[in-house]
């Protein structure tokens, strides 16, 4: 099957002007503007297969949202080619939007003042959803997302988590083959996050919906997608399997251990040696991060148990947050 989304050499530049400060500066701004061109997305290419769930991540300002906005036809690219679900988004806007669902975590797509169910009914008209499909999907979403109790509440009275669930249901009412989620779990508590993730998995499994999601919460990615694309300063720095990324990019392992009692703290320095440094987690919990190439876990553990009295000891792989943090900071993939 051909890819459902194909992005080739996508570049998007913004032209803004530098604002001067103060009253005089504001006056000056009216007449003379210093223009600055910012390249938000720089020759980005990727392809997504039907039914995939792909995590698209990057630090603030890395170009995630810009990419999503091009794919959802809000922005026209400066150069490059985009074909999504057989359409060139910014050329065939109205026909294309019928085939996509979009959720922006930061702001709702629903009408603020009217009851959720009324918003849904309007969307039914807008997307020309047949009555039977609408009923069936509304039922299904109400069950899966537990919407029933506030279907008749105006959107502005909902909590963030409730609103998010409604937004998600709204974006899928017309059964789009493609779903774009821009930070869908932002600001949500653990339970709400979990419910949304479960729902996404269910929809992906039963309907084969292709999902591209951006997030800052890497646990979203671990829960949902096998594939991860990392963008940094407008360029893609990694595109591949999540497991592969760990294998390729995890440099460190970490050993976490719990001291038997406080007296042991004094001996901590004895464990430390070249490339092995103790970090304090809390009073009795300490962490040693070490380069996997230079030391083996066995060696580090031996060192610890030989010099200290410990209650528990765990070996962990470097968490994906740490790997990603390193990429954001250094901007390159070793």
């Amino acid at each position, binding site marked *: 099957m051909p890819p459902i989304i194909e992005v080739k050499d996508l570049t998007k530049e913004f032209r803004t002007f530098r604002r001067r400060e103060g009253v005089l500066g504001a006056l000056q701004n009216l007449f003379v503007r210093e223009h600055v061109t910012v390249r938000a997305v720089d020759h980005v290419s990727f392809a997504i297969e039907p039914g995939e769930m792909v995590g698209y991540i990057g630090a603030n300002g890395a170009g995630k949202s*810009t990419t999503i906005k091009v794919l959802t036809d809000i922005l*026209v690219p400066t150069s490059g080619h985009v074909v999504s679900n057989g359409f060139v988004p910014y050329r065939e806007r109205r*026909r294309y*939007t019928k085939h996509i669902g*979009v959720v922006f975590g930061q*702001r709702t797509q629903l009408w603020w003042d*009217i009851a959720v169910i*009324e918003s849904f009914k*309007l969307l039914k008209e807008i997307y020309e959803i047949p009555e039977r499909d609408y009923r069936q999907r509304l039922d299904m979403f109400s069950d899966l997302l537990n919407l029933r109790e506030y279907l008749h509440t105006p959107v502005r009275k909902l909590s963030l988590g409730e609103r998010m669930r409604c937004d998600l249901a709204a974006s899928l009412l017309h059964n789009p083959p493609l779903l774009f989620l821009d930070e869908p779990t932002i600001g949500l508590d653990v339970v709400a996050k979990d419910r949304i993730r479960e729902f996404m998995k269910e929809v992906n499994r039963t309907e084969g919906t292709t999902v591209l999601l951006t997030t800052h919460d890497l646990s979203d990615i671990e829960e949902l997608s096998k594939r991860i694309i990392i963008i940094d300063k407008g360029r893609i720095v990694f595109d591949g399997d999540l497991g592969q990324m760990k294998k390729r990019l995890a440099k460190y392992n970490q050993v976490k251990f719990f001291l038997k009692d406080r007296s042991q703290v004094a001996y901590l320095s004895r464990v430390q040696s070249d490339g092995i440094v103790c970090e304090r987690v809390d009073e009795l919990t300490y962490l040693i991060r070490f380069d996997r190439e230079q030391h083996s876990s066995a060696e580090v553990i031996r060192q610890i148990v030989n010099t200290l009295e410990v209650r528990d000891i765990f070996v962990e792989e470097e968490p994906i947050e740490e790997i990603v943090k390193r990429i954001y900071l250094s901007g390159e993939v070793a």
Partner: protein
Amino acid sequence: MKRHLRLFLRYFAQYTKVRLAYKADFLIAFFSSMAATVLGFGFVLVLFSKIPRLQDWSFNEVMFLYGFSLIPLGFFNVVSWNLYDFGELYIIEGRFDRVLLRPVDTLFQVIFEKFRLESLQEVVTGLAVVTICLRRMHLALGVADYFWFALMVACGAVIYLAVFLILTAVSFWFEDRVGIVPPVFNMLNFGRYPLTIYNVFIQFLLSWIIPFGFASFYPTTHFLGRNTFAVYFHLVPVVAAGFSLLAIVVCNRGVVNYSSTGT
């Protein structure tokens, strides 16, 4: 087309429901709208208590003009609500993204998402004033005139809307909006008096630059039997079509600019 008509009815019904849910709020809006209308007519009354005629226009004629212009203005006011803070709400706050995400015409969505219902009062008041004036002047409209009347009302509303759409579209280019809408809005009331009382410059301005004269003054001359402006009267639909075309082009350009800059 049929789909958009159905959607319009949906949007309208929906909005009406929301609006009427807050009864006090709606009543206050209704009465203040009514008060503004009454004040407008009050001004004409005061004016004519000091002077017998305005140039060669009688009291009844001026009232007719003022009443007539209220009808297209009322329709315009009903749908123009979103245009006032378009830059603020849609561009700066970013609601326009949502508009772009839906498979419905962008202009349609912006105009019909909110209705100033209380302005329907202006349509009714305008019709009443026009009827009374015609009776007082012993003028009767022929069958063809009813058709012209309806067409002129529609054209007038379209002209008002087109002018303000063009001004609104400016927000697509300039985030920090220049205060251009309020002065133009005030000029709208200039067009509700006989254009001939103004100097040539303003007459030209209100005819060809900001064509408010074509929305109110020129149409009424026909119904009042003043045939000096017959050519202008027949140009009304042309001006309406021309300006709405211009408005659509400018708005579409604006949308393209928005998408390429993402301001």
